[in-house]
């Protein structure tokens, strides 16, 4: 199977357009719901034939839903390692589903990708449905996720317990099965060294943070994924509202930090950010983390109106398409680290030259 994502609007990344509220600080808002079908062992425990039957039933049910009727099915178990990495770089599949280090993924693993929603099948739970929205829009993501879940639940018997709620493979997800998260860019708080306090505060508020790629990923480029930690004992609305309230506060702290930076360290910060831009514009080799950190600087500069003529949309694209699996796909072959660094610099240079009107 060759991976063709060209049919998907925005390549399966509705958040990339940067059209949502606070898009310069919040890249995306996501709501994920974990569900299982009753009558089958959970995916890790199920046999090959059972997982294929789960996939079959889910496909049929999804075809009748408003959000996934025209979705594209990608059989993750038929993809190469490189293709699975690519989907992971687009946040379309989790690390668990992609099995990034294994030669093949678990049989029956798949993802249905629609315009506004995606549905992972045979992850650690049979169903992991997720809705991404551009910018800060938890409510919009929850509304669509709830609609899709309702439609699927009317067609598929979901595993539900009168006391524990929706049953999941790992009890950390049981109850609502809901994980709401926002991907935020907080360079102002990092530079003013306020970030430690903010992160501690998040944990005291029952929230947790991770890096750009969720569980187990490191924080690079000042990108933080903030999400609810618990899923049981509160309603879906309460979980979403609580996260939204706290994140709204984080956004205002970040804006304040940026004001302080331009007031107290105006020329220093301006110089630092233009240097980041200059490196991206002209470097001949860029490491993955290095590019991420420089892009963070340029994103901050755009947010502070120091650099004009560059859109957040372009920055979002650079963030995704400058990653290793995307560069490999563009070059049409697997790349060594050195080759990837050269290809990354070439790609970023090209995009920025076009934006600057020089190409």
């Amino acid at each position: 199977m060759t991976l063709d994502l060209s049919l998907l609007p925005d390549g399966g990344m509705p958040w990339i357009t940067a059209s949502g509220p606070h898009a310069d600080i919040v890249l995306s808002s996501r709501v994920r719901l974990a569900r299982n079908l009753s009558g089958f062992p959970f995916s890790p425990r199920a046999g090959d034939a059972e997982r294929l039957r789960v996939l079959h039933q889910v496909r049929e049910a999804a075809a009748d839903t408003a959000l996934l009727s025209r979705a594209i099915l990608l059989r993750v178990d038929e993809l190469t390692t490189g293709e699975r990495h690519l989907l992971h770089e687009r946040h379309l599949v989790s690390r668990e589903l992609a099995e990034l280090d294994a030669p093949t993924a678990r049989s029956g693993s798949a993802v249905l990708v629609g315009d506004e929603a995606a549905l992972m099948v045979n992850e650690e739970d049979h169903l992991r449905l997720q809705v991404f929205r551009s910018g800060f829009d938890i409510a919009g993501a929850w509304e669509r996720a709830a609609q899709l879940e309702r439609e699927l639940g009317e067609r598929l018997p979901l595993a539900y317990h009168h006391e524990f709620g929706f049953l999941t493979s790992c009890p950390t997800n049981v109850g609502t099965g809901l994980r709401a998260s926002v991907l935020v860019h907080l360079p102002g708080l990092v530079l003013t060294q306020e970030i430690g306090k903010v992160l501690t505060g998040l944990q005291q508020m029952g929230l947790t943070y991770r890096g750009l790629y969720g569980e187990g990923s490191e924080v690079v480029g000042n990108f933080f994924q903030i999400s609810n930690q618990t899923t049981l004992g509160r309603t879906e609305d309460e979980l979403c509202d609580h996260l939204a309230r706290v994140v709204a506060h984080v956004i205002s702290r970040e804006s304040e930090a940026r004001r302080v930076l331009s007031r107290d360290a105006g020329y220093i910060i301006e110089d630092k950010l233009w240097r980041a831009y200059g490196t991206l514009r002209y470097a001949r080799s860029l490491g993955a983390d290095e590019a991420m950190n420089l892009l963070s600087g340029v994103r901050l500069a755009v947010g502070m109106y120091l650099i004009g003529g560059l859109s957040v949309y372009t920055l979002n694209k650079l963030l995704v398409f400058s990653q290793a699996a995307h560069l490999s796909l563009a070059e049409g072959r697997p790349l060594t680290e050195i080759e990837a660094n050269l290809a990354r610099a070439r790609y970023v240079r090209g995009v920025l030259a076009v934006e600057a009107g020089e190409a």
Partner: protein
Amino acid sequence: MLCDQCRERDAVVHLTQIVESEVTQLHLCEKCAAAKGIETTVAMPKHPLGDFLHAVQQQASPSAGDQVRCAYCQTSLRDFRASGRLGCAQCYTAFEGALRELLRRVHGAARHRGHEYEAPAVSSEETALEQLRERLQQAVAAEEFELAATLRDQIRALE
């Protein structure tokens, strides 16, 4: 439990030493353990699964309960304690008591307050039988005879 060395702080490191077939157990606090050069970086993981497994392990005094198995998928409480994952929806009923306590620790609550759900109507007993029969066929086809025997017993019980 107090530290065997200083008798002041709580012991957090439990060391089993075997010297010439003589087994000794040493319980130390973090400070005394560090003084003895024993690695004590038992950093608390900050993701929910980590917290959860930590809670699971704290409870993991081996007991007869560990041998309890879920009749549907054969996962035992011990398997769950090792992996942090349940095997199927029925595990929640099989290990209900132990889970309730763990859920309270992890989520601060053990009762669902979100959306309620009713599955689309099908006779549950019939589907259960149907599913068991299908699983039996698959088990036989895959030559998993031990599983097949268990499934056959379950089918008989339901019939």
